[in-house]
């Protein structure tokens, strides 16, 4: 029977029941691999429920540093009888299935193309530990021990991690280590270890992995730190998965880093609002009054915020919104990932609006872009929305370490203080003095007689006086368009890389791929796969809306551009067509919207099929051919 082989290159998946403490054991497993210097990307796939339902943890190990999902499972660890049938079925032929053999495996779960390893986890723990909670918790550690044997995990790394985790609690450390060893020895004693898939420290990692120091963290924590470093002082939110941990983390860091050393008082405020309308209302009120304020939410919250987002756009109030996207529409699948709020965010609210969006792809970018978002929102005096998602926000990602330039100066934008107000000749809140669509604002309480004005969501003239004149209205909204143009100068540019050399290209079309956020990693991987197959594809990673001019150029200089994203309707593609005036036929959607992150294999398959289909050949006229 075939055996899947591979050093530092495979997918392990755990099938657990939620609420049984498996998360920390699974994390231990992933982090140990990470500490061995081997690229790893773990993903939690959990139900919208608190206890008792199936939950999975998928760990991809990839020497090349591919952090997106690959697709398929090489080794399954199943300790959940509820899902076992599905779990058995999902293993790749030649793969491995580790299960709790306390009960014998049901005959219908036997496949003859995969390898079974039964370990009586429950029995072992019942024998070993007196209380049921401990039995449940340590069972998870036992299977990690077994995996250490199966995959050759450095045992000292595991111990080191337990030491870090339970610092000072010796009893806990030793019971955990004991559980690890129990699993390890059982596996060693009963099976041939290690398996043909296994780990090797400092093995064959790609240069970009070997050369850079990495951290392992989730995007929500990174965004929270970005808000801390970016100087946010007011956070208002309403709990909603998967954005909840953004403000949780912000609060925790702020409690450590934002306490006034003299008085012990807080240099920040966190308000758990009564709903999302209130959450963004608080942030807007705070932004109006001169602090950096933000809120974090997910789909349903974004919908609820749309009236307020229209106000902030039209009344030009700085506010940052972190949208950690999940599967929509409506309640959808709250614990599954998607990139499906693009249009809802870009055009949030009735009337003519355009909102500034940022698309981070790594925790490092969650950090940088959140911090930047505060500069941007104050510079542009318009909401800035960070478009993260569950996959990025709640899973641990390898990421370059966070960096901070201590010379950073906050860009508070065009705010006049008392002295400037005294000096300025003629001030009007909406006078476009600089021609960039951005006007000078003032804060309440600044000056005894100058600079007071009325902020409103209704139409006004340049002097901020209420006006229903059509001319005033048009002047104002045209200026807002001008400002949106200006925004292009400030938002992060898209990223391109040198093309991958392809020896015998199978096509003479100039191909490109556009993607963003969590679609990026698997897209890069798919492009490499396709390059090997003879399809050279240039890439551009979108990092912000409004789009930079170089994106138009990219599209125009390619015959066919794949837009890779995780929603049903190809929302980013639509936004591009809308805003860049691109012939739609040029842009081909590559979509995944099942709720679990898109895989490199799927991307490659769709692109390959498109290129091989007659349609593509018929419809696309190469730019560089002679026919036109």
């Amino acid at each position, binding site marked *: 029977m075939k055996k899947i082989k591979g050093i530092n290159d495979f997918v392990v998946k755990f099938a657990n029941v939620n609420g049984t403490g498996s998360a920390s054991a699974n994390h231990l497993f992933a982090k140990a691999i990470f500490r061995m210097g081997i690229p790893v990307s773990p993903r939690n796939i959990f139900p919208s429920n608190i206890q008792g339902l199936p939950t999975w943890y998928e760990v991809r190990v990839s020497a090349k540093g591919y952090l997106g999902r690959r697709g398929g499972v090489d080794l399954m660890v199943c300790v959940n009888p509820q899902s076992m049938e599905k779990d058995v079925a999902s293993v790749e032929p030649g793969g491995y299935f580790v299960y709790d053999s306390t009960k014998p495996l049901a005959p219908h779960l036997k496949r003859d193309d995969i390898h079974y390893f039964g370990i009586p986890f429950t029995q072992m723990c019942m024998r070993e530990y007196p209380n049921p909670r401990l039995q449940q918790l340590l069972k998870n550690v036992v299977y990690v021990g077994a995996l250490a044997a199966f995959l050759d995990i450095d045992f000292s790394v595991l111990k080191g991690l337990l030491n870090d985790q339970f610092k000072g609690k010796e009893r806990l450390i030793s019971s955990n280590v004991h559980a690890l060893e129990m699993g390890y020895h059982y596996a060693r004693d009963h099976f041939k270890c290690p398996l043909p898939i296994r780990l090797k420290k400092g093995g064959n990692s790609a240069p970009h992995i070997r050369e850079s120091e*990495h*951290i*392992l*963290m989730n995007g929500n924590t990174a965004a929270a730190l970005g808000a*801390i*470093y970016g*100087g946010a*002082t*007011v956070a*208002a939110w309403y709990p909603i998965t998967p954005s909840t941990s953004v403000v949780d983390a912000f609060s925790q860091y702020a409690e450590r*880093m*934002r306490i*006034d050393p003299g*008085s*012990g*008082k*807080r*240099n920040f*405020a*966190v*308000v758990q*609002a*009564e*709903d999302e*309308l*209130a*959450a963004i*209302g*608080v942030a*807007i*009120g*705070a932004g*109006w*009054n*001169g*602090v950096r304020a933000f809120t974090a939410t997910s789909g349903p919250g974004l919908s609820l915020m749309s*009236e*307020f987002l229209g*106000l902030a756009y039209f009344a030009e109030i700085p506010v940052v919104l972190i949208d950690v996207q999940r599967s929509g529409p409506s309640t959808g699948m709250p614990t599954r990932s998607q990139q499906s709020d693009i249009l809802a965010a870009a055009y949030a609210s009735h009337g003519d609006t355009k909102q500034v969006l940022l698309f981070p792809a790594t925790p490092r970018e969650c950090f940088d872009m959140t911090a930047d978002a505060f500069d941007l929102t104050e510079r542009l005096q318009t909401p800035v929305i960070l478009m993260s998602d569950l996959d990025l926000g709640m899973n641990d990602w390898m990421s370059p*370490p*966070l960096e*901070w*330039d*201590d010379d*950073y*100066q*906050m860009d508070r934008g065009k705010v006049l203080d008392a002295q400037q107000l005294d000096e300025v000749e003629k001030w009007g809140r909406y006078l476009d003095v600089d021609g960039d669509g951005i006007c000078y604002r*003032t*804060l*309440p*309480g600044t000056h*005894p*007689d100058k600079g*007071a*004005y*009325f*902020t*409103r*969501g209704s139409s006004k003239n340049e002097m901020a006086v*209420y006006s229903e004149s059509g001319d005033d209205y048009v002047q104002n909204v045209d200026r807002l368009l001008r400002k949106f143009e200006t925004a292009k100068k400030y938002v992060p540019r898209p990223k391109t890389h040198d093309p991958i050399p392809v020896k015998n290209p199978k096509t003479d079309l100039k191909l490109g791929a556009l993607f963003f956020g969590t679609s990026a990693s698997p897209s890069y991987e798919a492009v490499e796969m396709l390059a090997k197959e003879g399809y050279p594809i240039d890439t551009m990673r979108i990092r912000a809306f409004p789009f930079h001019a170089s994106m138009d150029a990219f599209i125009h200089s390619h015959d066919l551009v794949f837009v890779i994203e995780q929603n049903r309707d190809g929302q980013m593609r639509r936004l591009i067509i809308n805003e860049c005036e691109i012939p739609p036929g040029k842009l081909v959607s590559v979509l995944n919207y099942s709720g679990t992150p898109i895989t490199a294999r799927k991307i490659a398959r769709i692109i390959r099929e498109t290129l091989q289909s007659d349609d593509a050949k018929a419809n696309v006229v190469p730019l560089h051919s002679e026919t036109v």
Partner: protein
Amino acid sequence: MSYIKPKFRHPRLQKNALGFTVADYDGAISTLCAGCGHDSISAAIRNACFESAIPPHRIAKVSGIGCSSKMPTYFLGKSHGFNSVHGRMPSVATGASLANRALTYIGVSGDGDTASIGMGQFIHLIRRNVNMTYIVANNGCYGLTKGQDSATADLGSVAKGGAVNPFDGIDLASLAILQGASFVGRSFSGDKEQLEPLIRAAMAHNGFAFIDVVSPCVTFNNHTGSTKSYSNTREHLEPMALDFVPMREEIRTQYAEGSTQSVTLHDGSVIHLHKADSGYKTDDRMGALNAIQSGNDADRILTGLLYLDPNSKDLNTNLNLATRPLNELGRRELCPGSKVLDSINEGLR
């Protein structure tokens, strides 16, 4: 359209402790209907701020949407103002107050803005005890959308078209008291003697101060059959008089022995309540609720300072917020710097 005109020339020239005249507290010319109760409230706010000698630019005005919510344009032209969206001023006010605790916040709303679309935010604003004065100009209808019944329209009140309201009106003052508001007053736009000191006391109060002001809509809800008309309100009014004496200011009026009861606010200012025989206690929640209810049963609208917790802890205090306004903090206070970040990175390896 009506303009808040001074009754005498003299008072407009008088100066307050800061050297401002009352004109310094004027706003733009009102575009409300002539005779609208809201204009009297605007005047009362202006006068209260003048009397209490608050520097106009240290006040921030917030409102929702409605005729009432337009009011902030018509007083305190030297203050910043923010007309937000319908019913959501409470959240905007909360954010503003957190951003700069050093200003005085005046929120103006309508009964539609507060009791209908804004109900959820209103209750949570109370719960948070945000340090602000919140005035509802209560006319029992939606003025700006042409007179529909609002949620404070009384059961049985007859609309202009003749329809009888089949729903119980929400009594915002009772609701505020039950929900734990730390300062609750009720008044009438036509009773400036009571309204002005009430507003002054509200502004001095440390926490959420709510004033429900009956403010007749002359265009849509001032006919016979309306329970929020000028005449109906005047007929049924049961006012408790009061006086506000700021810290370190002398009492100007002399009251009959025993007829006055005093409450001292956290900043040392004093409220004098004049209603010898009522035995009304402003610090008794259930007592206040019962008194309002008894009033209702007797078809009387009890007005005045209904409830006050002089020891109120506002949101800023509850959140243990720094004394210095958050909007004055800079990079030094806010940004932990690269070293801290390095150690965080360390923990993530």
